[in-house]
């Protein structure tokens, strides 16, 4: 089972700042453990994809990402989802505060 | 008056400041042996006791006497004391050894960079001890200097009683050859310390 995620989305200077935390081992090929890392991250604003990312095992364990979205209003729905190389996934949704 | 004080201490032992002996007893109760770290390690020797009691500021006379005692523990090898600085650098970088997590008998390090600057190429160095960058270049590498460096690494307390530096030879942490290699690191003109 995928570990917890946490997200904060706040209005700052007319834009929306998003910070998201993910629980994931992000093991590398060099570690001697089975390769296990997040490959895709998607950010949606009110159901529409605004950021689509591909990442590698070089992203640190328990990934932390910050994004900025244009404008935004209190209550806007932000969703961040990840998918890893083993097909495991998780997502979190929050309203802009 | 003295009796009254003693009585008070008896009634309110909680308010008295524990002596090093009291603390040792607490540790004997609350600590346990693990791996190579046996319970004999919580028992203080005379120097540890004096340094604890005086918060590392022993009276000069006493310090001089005890330092002389410590000097007797240093076994200086014959001949040149300058070993291989390349091995010395690895020993200086290595911070392992003597812990309950370290396998007994595994090669131990000197933890030198934890507290000292040595090779100026290494930017991750500690400052608890003085910088030793350029040590040999400044002080030369003659027999007296070799002896001083060897002795200081073997038993730092022979030179400064309450020094924070471990007695790396006396405690069995480093071998004679390892200490020679460290002497090489500090004194060899080819060592990065002296570049």
């Amino acid at each position, binding site marked *: 089972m995928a570990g917890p995620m946490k997200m904060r989305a706040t209005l700052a200077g007319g834009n929306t700042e998003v910070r998201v935390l993910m629980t994931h081992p992000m093991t590398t090929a060099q570690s001697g453990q089975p390769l296990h890392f997040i490959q895709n991250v998607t950010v949606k604003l009110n159901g529409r994809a605004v950021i689509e990312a591909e990442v590698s095992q070089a992203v640190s364990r328990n990934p932390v990402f910050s994004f900025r979205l244009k404008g935004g209003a209190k209550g806007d729905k932000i969703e961040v989802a990840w998918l890893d190389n083993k097909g495991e996934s998780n997502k979190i949704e929050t309203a802009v505060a | 008056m003295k009796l009254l004080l003693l009585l008070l201490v008896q009634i309110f032992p909680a308010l008295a*400041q524990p002596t090093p002996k009291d603390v040792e007893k607490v540790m004997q109760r609350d600590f346990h042996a693990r791996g190579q770290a046996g319970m004999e390690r919580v028992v203080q020797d005379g120097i540890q006791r004096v340094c604890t009691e005086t918060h590392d500021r022993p009276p000069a006379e006493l310090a001089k006497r005890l330092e002389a005692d410590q000097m007797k523990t240093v076994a200086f090898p014959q001949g040149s004391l300058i070993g291989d600085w390349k091995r010395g650098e690895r020993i200086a970088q290595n911070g392992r050894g003597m812990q309950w997590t370290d396998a007994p008998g595994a090669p131990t390090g000197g933890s030198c960079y934890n507290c000292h600057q040595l090779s100026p190429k290494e930017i991750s160095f500690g400052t608890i001890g003085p910088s030793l960058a350029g040590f040999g270049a400044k002080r030369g590498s003659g027999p007296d200097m070799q002896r001083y460096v060897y002795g200081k690494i073997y038993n730092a307390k022979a030179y400064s009683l309450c020094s924070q530096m471990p*007695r790396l030879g006396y405690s069995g942490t480093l071998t004679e050859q390892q200490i020679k290699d460290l002497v090489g690191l500090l004194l060899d003109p080819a060592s990065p310390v002296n570049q």
Partner: protein
Amino acid sequence: MTRAFAAILITCFGFCAPARAQDVKTEIERYRQMVSEGSPAELFEVEGEALWKKPQGPKQAALEKCDLGLGPGVLKGAYAALPRYFKDADRVMDLETRLLHCMTTLQGRSREEATQRVFGNADRPSEMESLSAYVAAQSRGMKMAPGESHPKEKAAYELGRALYFQRAGPWDFACTSCHGEEGKRIRLQELPVLLKPENARSVVATWPAYRISTSGFITMQWRMNNCYQQMRMPEPAFGSDATVALIHFITVTGKGEVYSGPGNKR
């Protein structure tokens, strides 16, 4: 971090260019600042909350009724008032010691079982670590005010202070060997002098914490344990009077600071 990766880092000495000490200090501070802006510590709080509410042990009870000093189940501000004297146990307890007490009393678990794995790792954090993250977080914004009035609280302070100066072991170390003089560091790590309120305050306000180098969560009991390991001493028992006394001494020295943790450590 993996061993191979660590080995690569250790070989760095051969390649790292020299740099001025002041630049190094400034850049390391900047590094820490940037890392602390997004701390995975919060992930451990989420785990801790679930554990706090999970029925466990022979009594199949949750810890929700655990009295951390402000009454059964009161979490808000409880960490900021620890360590303190607890009448029911007739001793001073820090957070972890108290949690262990609740595991044995409320949940009916044996001390052996509950302390079998108090320090975890990144792959599997310990129950104690996640719970510490959760409970400590409920004191954010509150002033640290450990108990200081009970005679046993005073005695713990004095014992903690004495332990801080106690030199022993094959390397003759006391806490003061590393944490005794201001402005000193081990490698690049600056060492707070925990005898001084101005040094202890920020420490007390940020523990327990996420540890960057291991991606795990670390607690004050772990800090004491790991310091004694590095001091080449035998192991202090988890939740023992000696460890609680040291934690109490440090917390009292740093009292008054507003709690802002769980923080980030190297």
